[in-house]
């Protein structure tokens, strides 16, 4: 009796011990990911403090933070982030919308594909940033130029992946749906679109990367507002802290956009084995 009880007692403490060990391990593994970045920032700060790195070439992290605080208080940072974000979103909606629509159309209709696909594949081989000189001639440096470049940049990833997604929907499922008398509309809504969605999301995440890249280039070359413009202005006056700040803001915006896309994937693809809740 006693022995049985003591065995029980032992196993329960074992279980509790294992649980707390696992918790510690989880925290340690989470913390270890941040170890190297933290070390780099600390070294950077140290090197700047001891004068090993010139403040005009690479300002200390604290100077960058101070610049951020200064620009936040003046309202300049928020205004520039807003204009950059608006440009990015507008370009994504226009270019991504057209890419999605054409991808669906060409995936569903042989006629549409014959008419447009080979033309689009030819244009795809032109690096869209190579068009900048031409775009400046066409649009000057106003909003039209940025919108055009971003839209063109995000168009192809969404087009190509949407087309691929529609094409790769299991033909057995389509046959099943037809044999059950599904109308074309229902077939699209209930079989083809959900089947293509994982691939469309791949295209969206790729497009988001292209979106920020295009915007950075467009804003540093031809703009009168936005994060890129802020960085170029700061360069004129050798305010490297603002330049570094701008680079960090771009990185954060990119990370944020990716986060939103991942979140949408989770919400829209709950059935997908990759996003299954554990």
């Amino acid at each position, binding site marked *: 009796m006693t022995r049985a009880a003591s065995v029980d007692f032992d196993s329960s403490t074992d279980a509790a011990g294992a649980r707390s060990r696992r918790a510690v391990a989880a925290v340690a593994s989470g913390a270890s990911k941040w170890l190297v970045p933290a070390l780099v920032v600390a070294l950077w700060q140290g090197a700047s403090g001891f004068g090993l790195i010139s403040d005009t070439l690479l300002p200390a992290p604290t100077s960058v933070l101070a610049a951020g605080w200064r620009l936040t208080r003046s309202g300049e940072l928020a205004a520039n982030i807003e204009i950059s974000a608006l440009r990015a979103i507008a370009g994504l909606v226009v270019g991504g919308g057209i890419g999605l629509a054409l991808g669906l159309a060409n995936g569903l209709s042989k006629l549409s594909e014959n008419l447009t696909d080979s033309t689009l594949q030819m244009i795809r081989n032109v690096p869209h940033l190579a068009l900048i000189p031409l775009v400046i001639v066409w649009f000057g440096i106003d909003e039209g130029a940025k919108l055009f470049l971003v839209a063109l940049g995000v168009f192809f990833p969404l087009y190509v992946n949407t087309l691929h997604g529609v094409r790769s929907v299991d033909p057995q499922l389509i046959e099943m749906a037809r044999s059950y008398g599904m109308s074309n509309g*229902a077939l699209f809504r209930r079989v083809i679109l959900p089947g293509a969605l994982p691939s469309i999301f791949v295209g969206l995440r790729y497009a988001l990367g292209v979106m920020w890249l295009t915007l950075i280039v467009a804003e540093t070359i031809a703009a009168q507002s936005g994060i890129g413009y802020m960085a170029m202005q700061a360069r004129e006056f050798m305010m490297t802290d603002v330049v570094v700040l701008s680079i960090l803001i771009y990185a954060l915006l990119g990370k944020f956009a990716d986060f939103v896309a991942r979140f949408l994937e989770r919400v829209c693809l709950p059935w997908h084995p990759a996003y299954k809740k554990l």
Partner: protein
Amino acid sequence: MTRIAALAPSEALPGFEVGLRDAAPPGAPLTARGLVKRFGDKIVLNALDLHAPAGQFLAVVGRSGCGKSTLLRLLAGLDEADGGRISFGDREINDAPRLARVMFQEARLLPWASVLANVEVGLGRARGSGRRLALDALASVGLADRVGDWPSALSGGQRQRVALARALVSRPRFLALDEPLGALDALTRIEMQHLLEAAWRRERFTAILVTHDVTEAVALADRIVLLEDGAVALDVTINLPRPRSRGTAEFGAIVDRILGRLLRSA
């Protein structure tokens, strides 16, 4: 009275009383005349004639490549014949989607739709009040507790049971079964055979089962047709009482006879 008697032997399986809603519509009699199907130069079906009276459970067996799956696809309206006519009673094949349902070898469930939504697909365009019917159909295959799950959470046998519920929810008058149990393990197969037989006895649809498993054909069918070179080579009526026990001498004799004929055609 006869309905009750017919249902009695299936009490070992869950939820069959659900089927006692109202009298099932009679199955559709199926007639195929002079069916021809070619793939390139190869003639797969060579002027095949076949008639299945209303409510018959007909099994089609044959070696691979004998044209049995091709025949089923024509009867189910999935492919078009190169010649000949198919009719269901007084209706032509073009009306078939409203009468006929198909169960494929793969379950073919929509991965992005819940189990319940997948069964609702079976209601075709006449959805709406279908939720109740879909729930009943799922209960009749013993999956009432899995309605909200994704298909990926089910086993192969459970997926095929959902596919059966989807095929039955619209109360078809003709059910085409294209080796639906071919990919299942032996035990699940036998369970599914019982389920299929019970559904057929309840709903009285005309059933055509394509299978390479002669024992399965003898266990389920009223009649077995053996295809060879695109034509009917053997037509056997099975008069064994249901539910059938596989151990009996008569059962074994019929299996042997058909297997013998199949082996001879090598």
